[in-house]
């Protein structure tokens, strides 16, 4: 048993000594931190107090709570184009904000700007190029600013929205909102909940 311990120790003594010479933890500065509840409160205040025209899509006033339910795409659009940016800028956009919070804000605004540019009803080469720049900046900085986050397939796929904007024009020509509406109509049609049955015409 002791011999086994010696052998194990000898295996690791030299590696341990030399491992110590390598960085033990990442040298990217302090982790960003903010009060999540304070930020959510600011967003709730924005949702409650911002005066909007009647056509603008509503969002759950208790956004962030489990009880708010599933957030749909048009609600995410309302959140990311209006409430999230004005809440975050009001919190972290001032001259006295900490650098880390300002960088989180700027990074989020890359995504906000990408959404604005991509949803324009008229597309130009400048818009499409601006979109791709914002997405590259957003995806490229994601791990640096938020080290514990992951990149996902949608991050890669989002680059190709640039191609689609150039090839097929504004998103309104090729997005799935109208098809989702079709599904909504179908879901409200009366059915007998039996799949694939049909009474065929007989003579």
């Amino acid at each position: 048993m002791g011999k086994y311990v010696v052998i194990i120790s000898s295996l690791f003594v030299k590696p341990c000594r030399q491992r110590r010479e390598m960085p033990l933890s990442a040298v990217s500065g302090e982790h960003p931190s903010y009060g999540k509840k304070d930020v959510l409160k600011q967003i709730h205040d924005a949702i409650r107090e911002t005066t909007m025209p009647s056509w603008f899509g509503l969002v759950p006033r208790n956004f962030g709570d489990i009880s708010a339910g599933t957030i749909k795409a048009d609600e995410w659009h309302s959140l990311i184009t209006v409430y999230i940016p004005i809440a975050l800028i009001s919190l972290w956009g001032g001259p006295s904000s900490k650098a880390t919070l300002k960088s989180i804000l700027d990074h989020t605004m890359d995504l906000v700007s990408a959404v604005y540019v991509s949803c324009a009803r008229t597309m130009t080469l400048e818009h499409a190029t601006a979109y791709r720049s914002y997405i590259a900046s957003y995806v490229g900085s994601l791990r640096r600013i938020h080290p514990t986050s992951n990149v996902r397939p949608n991050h890669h796929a989002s680059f190709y929205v640039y191609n689609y904007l150039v090839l097929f024009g504004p998103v309104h020509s090729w997005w799935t909102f109208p098809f989702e509406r079709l599904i909504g109509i179908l879901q409200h049609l009366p059915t007998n909940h039996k799949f694939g049955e049909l009474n065929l015409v007989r003579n």
Partner: protein
Amino acid sequence: MLCSYLKGAKLRAWLSRPDCPQAVKECKVLLDQAYGVNGDDTTVIDPLEEYVRPLDTARATNMPPDLREFVHLRRTVLRAHLRHAGVVFSRSSTNVGNSQIMFYPSGDQSLRAVPGLIKYIFEGDDGSMAFAVQWREALGRNGEGDPFAAYPHFPAKLYSARASEKLEKVKILWVVSHYACWAISEEEVVVLSLCRVSSCISKPRL
């Protein structure tokens, strides 16, 4: 499910045909009204319509004095709402959100759109509807120190919480869009244009 849907779709197609029988067309109007289908018609009758006489009649006391400089007829029509291109505009005393508009001053599209509040919706001398708008006062900072104006593709800006007393006549075609408004303090509000057509061609911040 497919058959039900296809029947409904084909019915809609029939009702939309220009060679549809007149009686059927009348039914379609009723159907659209019942199911709240919006149109572009600016002459939709507003149930809150008011008829106001100018000052030289017995009902003169109801005429808002600040509107007199725009109206030179003996009678005019004030509305609480107006629907144009499928969007509803309202006067600020009825619905603040629908009264918040971005517009080109004097209709000059070379200028930057500015925010204002619709105080009156009235029928002008030429019979067309127009808005009497109060400007949102600028902060006088020329955008300096405005954290909301730091992002070129995010159309937000700080303005004074106070609206001007002076009214400006704004034609419907000068209106760009509505805007969202959030009071971040007693003196300042953030105005975010809800324009769907992006006219911003400045370089993005990289």
